[in-house]
């Protein structure tokens, strides 16, 4: 910079009060105050003295006309190989085994040459759009006319730790709120009996960095992801302790309320006390609603069949996909499903035997995902449910080791797709080079993906901000990012 004068480039000059609550709960006055001042929330401030309970997750209108009400993010943890799934590279097959110069950067560092591993599956054209899809996904292939593929995704890191944070929270640095937290901060949830941001993990375990992936960072804990389980207690501490019947619990809660109302009598203006009283009733309702939401027994057999429930290979992921639909149906804003967990081949991280790894992970997810898309569509829910598929990065066209078919990570170019929620079907955006090593045309960044998701939900990615640490923080960063307009119907 040549001059010493301060200049203004991209931090918006908005002076907004720090999230302040004057000793009150985040509910009650503080929140209403904040929301009103934030300007874009429509809720009018209510007189503090008459407010019994304001759910911080109460639904709010976004800044734009929403196209989607909910998001189902199918997180292919570990990083699926784009050249073996949706990014058809005919030129790569004949190069199999040849060592060629190609710049790569993965967990194995930077390399300037490598041995090509030709795609291990054949590709076929599907749908009216004629999309080439590999034999890994015969079911999803049937849905391509509803899907928009992004082949030119790029991310800032090819290392799981930082790349996971990037895809989930928009930064490679730890401590920022997750996408689901931003959505709930911006929109709230329409069902107060269920959490607004639900994460369903793979049975093998969580992703690396665990809770950092669904953390609300510097935002209130209200917005953090809640883990929902398909077996046992769906939500932590949802079930009353062993031996406590519903009648006992009701009695207990009634007594608690009597004590608390008595306590509140002398403090009539303390809305936070009212809020806490109400939170017990909500918890009680949640106890009955959440199990109902996760109970798929009421679903007809043909629906279960669509998701591959009952088939050994697809049953587990199918159940979670069906649950995702049920949650979205009940107003949950953001549902994230991890396909793959823990480490190594328990997820898509195919460093060793690519075929074995991808056959396994595609095999257990292909039919359930297709089932989800079809089921949403037949119910007319696809229009308002945005389905996102992809991992934290893709994989390299070359081998990672001296032996074998394993591919290292690739953040220079990879594929993600979206369906529903006002996204055009049957189209593809961007390209990688003929090897699939790097995005070359219409290169897009994770921030553009996030911007698109927010945009479809009616949130302006460049205006949705949270004042923290002296500036208006945004999911898409201070510089902002545009939605991918070509995808938007």
């Amino acid at each position, binding site marked *: *910079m040549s001059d010493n004068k301060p200049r203004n480039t991209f931090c918006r*000059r908005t002076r907004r009060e720090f999230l302040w609550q004057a000793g009150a709960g985040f509910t009650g006055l503080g929140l209403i105050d904040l929301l009103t001042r934030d300007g874009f929330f429509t809720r009018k401030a209510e007189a503090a003295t008459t407010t019994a309970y304001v759910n911080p997750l109460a639904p709010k209108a976004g800044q734009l006309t929403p196209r989607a009400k909910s998001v189902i993010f199918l997180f292919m943890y570990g990083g699926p190989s784009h050249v073996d799934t949706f990014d058809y590279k005919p030129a790569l097959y004949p190069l199999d085994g040849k060592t060629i110069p190609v710049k790569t950067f993965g967990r194995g560092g930077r390399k300037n040459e490598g041995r090509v591993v030709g795609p291990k599956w054949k590709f076929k054209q599907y749908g009216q759009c004629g999309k080439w899809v590999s034999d890994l996904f015969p079911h999803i292939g049937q849905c391509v006319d509803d899907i928009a593929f992004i082949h030119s995704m790029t991310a800032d890191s090819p290392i799981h730790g930082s790349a996971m944070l990037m895809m989930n929270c928009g930064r490679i640095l730890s401590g920022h709120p997750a996408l689901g937290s931003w959505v709930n901060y911006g929109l709230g949830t329409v069902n107060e009996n269920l959490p607004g941001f639900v994460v369903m993990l793979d049975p093998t375990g*969580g992703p690396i960095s665990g809770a950092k992936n669904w953390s609300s960072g510097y935002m209130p804990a209200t917005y953090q992801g809640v883990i929902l389980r398909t077996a046992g207690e769906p*939500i*932590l501490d949802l079930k009353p302790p062993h031996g406590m019947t519903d009648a006992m619990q009701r009695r207990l809660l009634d007594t608690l309320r009597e004590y608390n109302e008595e306590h*509140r009598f002398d403090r009539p203006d303390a809305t936070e006390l009212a809020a806490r009283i109400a939170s017990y009733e909500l918890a009680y309702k949640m106890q009955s609603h959440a199990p109902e939401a996760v109970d798929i027994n009421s679903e007809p057999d043909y629906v279960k069949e669509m998701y591959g429930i009952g088939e050994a290979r697809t049953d587990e992921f199918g159940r979670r996909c069906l649950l995702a639909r049920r949650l979205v149906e009940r107003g949950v804003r953001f549902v994230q499903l991890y396909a793959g967990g823990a480490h190594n081949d328990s997820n898509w991280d195919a460093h060793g035997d690519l075929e074995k790894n991808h056959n396994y992970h595609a095999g257990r997810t292909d039919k359930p995902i297709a089932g989800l898309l079809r089921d949403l569509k037949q119910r007319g829910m696809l229009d308002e449910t945005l389905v996102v598929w992809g991992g934290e990065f893709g994989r390299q066209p070359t081998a990672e080791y001296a032996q074998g078919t394993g591919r290292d990570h690739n953040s220079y170019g990879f594929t993600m797709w979206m369906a529903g929620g006002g996204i055009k079907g049957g189209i593809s955006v961007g390209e990688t080079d003929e090897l699939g090593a790097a995005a070359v045309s219409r290169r897009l960044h994770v921030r553009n993906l996030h911007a698109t998701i927010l945009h479809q939900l009616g949130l302006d990615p460049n205006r949705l901000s949270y004042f923290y640490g002296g500036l208006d923080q945004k999911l898409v960063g201070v510089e902002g990012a545009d939605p991918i307009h070509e995808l938007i119907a």
Partner: protein
Amino acid sequence: MSESQLRRQWGAAILLPFVTAAALALALGPRGEAADAPPATVEAAISPADEAFFQEKVLPILQDNCFQCHGGERIRANLILTRREGVLKGGDHGPAVSLDNPDESLLLAMISYKDDRHQMPPSGKLANDQIAILTQWVHRGAPWPAELDFTTAQPEQEVDLFEQAQGFWAFQPVKRPPTPTVENRDWPTNPIDAFILARLESEGLHPAPEADRITLVRRAYYDLLGLPPTPQQVDAFVNDTRPDAWERLVDELLASPHYGEKWGRFWLDLVRYAETNSYERDNPKPHAWRYRDYVIRSFNANKPYDRFIIEQLAGDELPDATADTYIATGFYRLGIWDDEPVDREQAFYDGLDDIVTTTGEVFLGMTVGCARCHDHKIDPLRQRDYYSLLAFFRNINHFRNGGPTDERMIFESEAARAEYEKREAERVQRLNQTQQELIAIENRFRMLASDSELPQKDLDDLHYRFYRDTWDALPDFDTLKPEDTGRIENNLFDIRLRTRDEAFGFVFEGDLIVPADGQYEFFLHAADGARLLVAGKEVIRHESNNNIRQQVTGTIDLRAGRVPIRLEYYQRLDEFGLKLAWAGPGVKKRLLSAPDDAHADKQLGKAPELNKDVAALILGDTGKALLGEQVVREYDSLRKRLEALKRPTRAEHALVVTEAGRDAPDTFVLIRGNASAPGDKVTPGFPAIFNLPEPTLPTPPENATTTLRRSVLARWIASPDNPLTARVMVNRLWQQHFGRGIVATPSDFGLGGERPSHPELLDWLASEFVDSGWNIKHMHRLMMTSSTYRMAGTTNPEALAKDPTNRLLWRYSMRRITGEELRDSILAVSGKLNLKMFGPSVYPPIPREVMQGQSEPGKGWPTSPPQEASRRSVYVHVKRSLRLPILESYDAPESDFSCPVRLVTTQPTQALGMLNGTFLNEQAEHLAERLRREAGENMRDRVALALQLVTCRKPTETQIARGVELIEGLQKDGATPEQALKYFCLVTLNLNAFVYVD
């Protein structure tokens, strides 16, 4: 705006270019006279050929690829490419086009996509013919008709923030204001009250009456200790009729060792205290808990705040540095750390940013971090100020989670250090002695066995670390994350342990067994790069990336015994590998590296026979036959002694900051915060808004290990003249006592922060704080003995209407206790609280379901036994990716950044945990046991005691009856008497009266 819309707009612009006044003036003005535009813009009209070339070839490319972000919809990087003047003037990175050196033009570098940092347009590289056109255009002098200006984006209005900040309260010196006069002379106890009352009176408001004694004693216990008073403690105060009973109580609590636990936690929030690093592994930081203990001890000792600051920022540089002041510098090491960052250079500055940001916010209440990439948008802080502050820290060794740059041995006294050093020297001496005795026996055996082939074991305890990447020179391997590590059983440098043949590296470390005193020579053949260190000295450094297979040698004098040896190696392509041999007294030239058939090299001597083990032969029948049983026994015991002697003498370690010597590298402003785009050089300095001369940097003595720069910064921050330090700290103390700071944004005293509700009071407190010798307990005492603090929380409709948030303090603001206070209180009430202080952290049970969210469930959380698990929450291990549910749910801070204000959320998931969670139900059970133990058989007594324990008050008849009724009702519902009592206890732990402090 869609792309097609954009195109239409540009289309229109091309047909009808609008001519700005400036452009007109330029076009009409005489050559070279336009003072404020670069002279290059004022040239004669361009030739028709150039104009056509621009219009037809160049403009469409710029329109489609550059305009949107550089002058069309927005202006990125301050670069405007929608008019010629913008092209020549350039943006943050400099001019886009250089007319003098067209080939050096940034524009051409950017469109060439030459590396990760030069890629424009970001959406993809231009076609070759487009690049050719722009290249030609640049070479032709970037012809562009001056009147064609397509700029539609409005540059942000430049505001002189320095002008705006003129006279801004926070940057003015603290002046002690006179105590205001008030109408109600009876109310004020001390000057604080006069300031509060004067303001209330000016608004026509009255302070609430004094709270009752029980409310007061409970408030005091929570505010100073974070624990509820016991019924005896309540009674003691309530029955204390002395006029100074309250003052005595405050003093008594300030003297309690548990005061430091409560207030230490307050400080830990600010300094982003955590004991792990986040990211994939989220590994523990070594000895982080010592910093926590240091903070607790400092609060308990009432360490003057200026000293507390200096110790944390520069405790290692103090002339009177002690173990404690070293531990204090753990402050620098508490942040997040990615052990495999995508960009090391950037990660280094991320680490410094964490320090600059935290230091600025915590000590100065300035959001300095906002000026990392550009000048601050709200405060008078230039980007240059950020890097001038960063320069104080520039020489800090980047964190690597342990090792000599992060850890330091600490001793209680100099005598203890001397004792340690003596014992360690003895150990090394005995180790070498023992090794020599072993060698002597082995040599004798070799002679007697007349087997010259019998291998001499040269390397011992050899370990390897395997790395993968492409390097141009030897990297600092210790900062990199290895792909694999392990022990090498054959004790030879062996690169066959690699997993691929190109782009990899190794570090081998172990002991070299030196048979005799004397000079040894080492012979190295290596492909790309290698470095040999023996006894801590570099013997060979070899870097030949052109793959010359020449032999490199080096010599070193060694003493007989064992010395550490380290070999670093990297290889880029599948080529010649690694050979290392040595020769010297008692060593006929032989290999230390594993034989590799492909590249056998006779010159380097034979590799040891791997199938013959001298030790095994000596200890076997041959040994007994040749040496005799007694010698073999001696050999065996020498070997065992050697193993024992290998263990270093035990010493305590602390997590500390270190620097890389007494000279710091230069610091540069990083353009847009980009580590690989250095701009102007800066020197350590204070932000310009303070109008201070350049600080004089001390010249560190020859043997200094740091630059002493941090001391300069620390002394400025801890100076009575600093306008912010004292204000920021007294405001934080006020915030903890009154629920809200006088400045409601306690880490942002800038223009974007809140204005003080009582500016004079803040200054009075700040000045009192400094005058008292930065005495924190004095400030607690002042605040707590004020009438303001002792007000009741009673409501008052008139005041509520005027000041609903109680900003003016017309009453005491009720607060919910923190997650830590809640957990500690539950344990205190149940009788299970273990008040043991200090030491390594504890790991209370975490439900399996929560652990399931980890990629390796249970990793990094070795659950403590019940008694340890029942210690105060300040001693619970702070793991960034796995938090104790009750603390997380009750808003304990996300520890990645400094947390100046705890948010208070109320949500149903908290209620679920409080009703159904294991911890609550277990503690309810313990409370029930306690009631049975302490309240006897009578149910009314039990109920009464429980209610008294949680509320600190003797319950009313109705309250007791309600509890008894619940217990009876539950039994009617089928609960056993034990269950019923337990569930009643659960209710008491859920009461608002328990969770809120009046």
